[in-house]
């Protein structure tokens, strides 16, 4: 299953990458791959903007506007006049 792909805010700056491979490890959708000992965007459209890669990139080679893709949270934010707020605990079984 794939979601809307052209709205993704993920940006990768290859010049800063030192090839530690952390982004490849933490991404749950295999957005990054390794190419010539450096990270490379393998599937940018699959990005769900969880922010794990940017958070774990010591070289700050990744930028993404991280958030939770939850309509209920966006709606709650709209009504409160604020940023989306995730009030529920979510229940995805894959949340381990």
């Amino acid at each position, binding site marked *: 299953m794939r979601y809307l792909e052209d*709205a993704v805010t993920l940006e990768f700056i290859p010049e800063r990458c030192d090839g530690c491979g952390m982004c490849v490890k933490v991404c749950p959708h295999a957005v990054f791959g390794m190419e010539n000992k450096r990270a490379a965007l393998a599937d940018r459209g699959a990005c769900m903007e969880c922010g794990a890669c940017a958070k774990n990139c010591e070289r700050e080679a990744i930028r993404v506007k991280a958030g939770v893709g*939850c309509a209920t949270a966006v709606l709650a934010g709209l009504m409160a006049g604020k940023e989306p707020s995730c009030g529920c605990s979510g*229940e*995805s079984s894959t949340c381990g």
Partner: protein
Amino acid sequence: MPSIDAYSQRTLRSFTVRRRVDAPWIDGFVVTASGKVPRVQTALDFRDCLGSVKARWDIGRMNYRVPPGLYAAGNPGIGSTVLVSANYKMSFDRLRSVLPGRDAWILVLDTDGVNVWCSAGKGTFGTDEIVRRVQESGLERVVSHRTLVVPQLGAPGVSAHEVQRRCGFRVEYGPVQAEDLPAFLDSGMKASPDMRRVRFRLRDRAVLIPVELVMGAKYAVLLALAFLLLGGVSGGGYSLAGVRTIGLKSAAVVLGAFLAGAVLGPILLPWLPGRAFSAKGAALGLVLVAGIGAWDIFRNGGVASWLHAAAWMAITPALTSFVVMNFTGASTFTSLSGVRREMRFALPLQVAAAAIGFGFWLGGLFAA
């Protein structure tokens, strides 16, 4: 059950009383250089399973927690692996259930009783909390190595290099699913690409249905009730006959639309057309309303009111679209900017369709 000495019995009791948590899953204590650490059972019992079922049905879900801190599984020593978890009991249970026959430490973070991935998104499962727990538990005296195994889905809240800089422990990201943890540990902490992917299989989606039902039910029932009562309105005044016919049928369609969105939406998700969840939901609603129309014509030999037929053609897809759109939050692959984009077009359409449909429906009451 291993035997528990009197001191441990007392500690266990004070532990459970102080934390006001019934903790039958603790079966003893392990002595460490940083004090006694409660040992957990690695087999889930009936109460644990019942607890999971209740949480799935949103019964006490927000208070289904484990006291944060260090725990032992098996008989761990200074060389044993340290596994980090959230204090949502379902997350914790899933972790300990894959550890039979293993000696490991479990460091439970305080995530307000929220699972790993969601709390990582909020940052409560995060760098600060890991550093605090490592220091508070005296972990550096409990183990001789300096490695923490953190679930991969904790990564949105954790900065591995920050954790190492601030408390000296290196973060190794474990697999997405706890069930892959034994294979990960046995291979010297190597995760296959498959173990790093998050899925959204049929069973992953199906277990979410109860919470979807419980959370949406009150709105659906209120809406159905409104239609039921308004069904008695007509040009000639209020009639109970109207409630019994138009009202009852309308309430049934509303509830049917909610059920379709909350049950069939998650199940049929990959096969519903479009990528936007609102589009998938609208498609589901159109199929539903076509079915209702066909059944009506077949059973009654025609459509009773064309205004009401038009009303449901607009209201049903609007409702199912809205319900399925709200499933984005439970899914494992939607992005915030994508959700914002789809809501920008879907929300006005849903509101407009519902309003126009409701207009037709009211018109139908007076035309009858």
